[in-house]
């Protein structure tokens, strides 16, 4: 017992002092942005010494948590609605919203030849088409928009299986349970070209991914610094490597 008390006396001040050397940023990040976010954070840490802790999830789920007081300081959404809503709801800092990336939707299948995905979709020779939940995940909404545009809503709706977020849609495909599905280009950027069909930009509205500084992070300079870093050339290069178009930064 005495030894534990001693440990606490010696140990606690060390932990308490840590923020003086390096700050920590807590960020809620849309699942599709997982890979670039981790790489950007590594670059950010290398540069500033500050670290970023991520919570990845579906944009809708993360936003629900934020409205209920989740201790996130920065929110990288997969859409441009929720960051604006965060400001309206008094949860986000006014004027801090900007587009950090523009996402691209692809049709992906490890099994089928997707040189022309539209043809594969019309041919309809499959049992399950995976998408992210169109009501909560912007990539799911973009997938539905594409299906609509191709005039296949009636034919394909019975075959849809819905992942809770875009990562789960990919799980369904990669585990072989669904033959193909709509995911983010960033998730399958390293797959062979034959397995990935890039949906033409005119088939869906651009997926503007906005970021916002949350009120909980207003007092943490590292949170603002991380958002600023997202606009840097270094961060933009990482995003482009992962299949995003870098955002306008405004």
């Amino acid at each position: 017992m005495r030894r534990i008390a001693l440990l606490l006396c010696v140990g606690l001040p060390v932990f308490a002092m840590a923020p003086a050397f390096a700050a920590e940023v807590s960020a809620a990040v849309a699942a599709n942005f997982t890979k670039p976010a981790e790489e950007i954070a590594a670059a950010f840490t290398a540069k500033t010494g500050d670290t970023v802790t991520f919570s990845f999830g579906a944009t809708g789920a993360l936003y629900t948590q934020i409205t209920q007081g989740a201790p996130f300081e920065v929110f990288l959404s997969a859409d441009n609605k929720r960051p604006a809503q965060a400001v309206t709801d008094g949860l986000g800092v006014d004027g801090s919203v900007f587009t950090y990336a523009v996402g691209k939707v692809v049709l992906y299948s490890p099994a089928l030849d997707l040189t022309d995905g539209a043809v594969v979709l019309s041919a309809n020779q499959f049992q399950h088409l995976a998408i992210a939940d169109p009501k909560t995940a912007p990539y799911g909404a973009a997938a539905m928009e594409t299906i609509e545009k191709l005039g296949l809503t009636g034919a394909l709706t019975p075959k849809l299986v819905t992942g809770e977020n875009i990562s789960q849609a990919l799980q369904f495909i990669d585990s072989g349970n669904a033959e193909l599905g709509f995911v983010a280009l960033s998730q399958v950027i390293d797959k062979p070209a034959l397995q990935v069909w890039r949906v033409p930009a005119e088939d869906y509205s651009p997926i503007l991914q906005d970021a916002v500084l949350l009120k909980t992070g207003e007092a943490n300079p590292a949170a603002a610094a991380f958002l600023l870093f997202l606009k840097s050339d270094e961060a933009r290069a990482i995003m482009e490597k992962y299949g995003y178009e870098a955002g306008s930064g405004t």
Partner: protein
Amino acid sequence: MLSAGEIAQPVGLTLMLALIVTSLLLVIATPIGWWLCRSRAAWKEAVAAVVSLPLVLPPTVLGFYLLLAFGPNGPGGLVAPLWGARTLAFSFEGLVIASVIYSLPFMVQPLRNAFEAMGEEPLEVAATLGAGPWQSFFRIALPMARAGYLTGAVLTFAHTVGEFGVVLMIGGNIPGETKVLSIAIYDYVERLEWGNAHILAAGMVVFSFVVITAVMMIDRRVGRVVG
């Protein structure tokens, strides 16, 4: 606000699932519980541990393995083609299999306990009176274990109704097929449609309260009669 159909579909699906799973487990768990009670094999407790694993494992572990097992590259890919599918995931049948595994300990445990509480004596008496093993099982053991069966059935039913993580991972959220009550509630919460979430969630709270009260009453009343 929710229409009657929007409530009825997930509720009906969930009750159907729970009913089928409970019926199947009544049959499946009986020999397992009986064997765990009667066997003298050294590896008996290892089997008991395997049966109990779903109690301890996070649903994500089970969901992950089932997702792989159900797919075309797992055993599911061998079974599913029998009715023209390629995977057991995203189907009601798949949910039934997953739930049977997931709820197995909730049926086996009470049965094993009930058989053990009965002791050797009644069966020995039955044997001296000339009853065969089947006869003494159906006429002595089964009625004496009725509290265990009731508890097991209620717990299994309730546990299946409350299942969430596993279904989330293998269900694919298909209305009328795999979109059970817990998933429907999660959906509404995510969409910030909290009014609808409240209706279903409050129903679940009431249901769970009734179930737990029922289990306690069964334990006290039937237990007393038998014990």
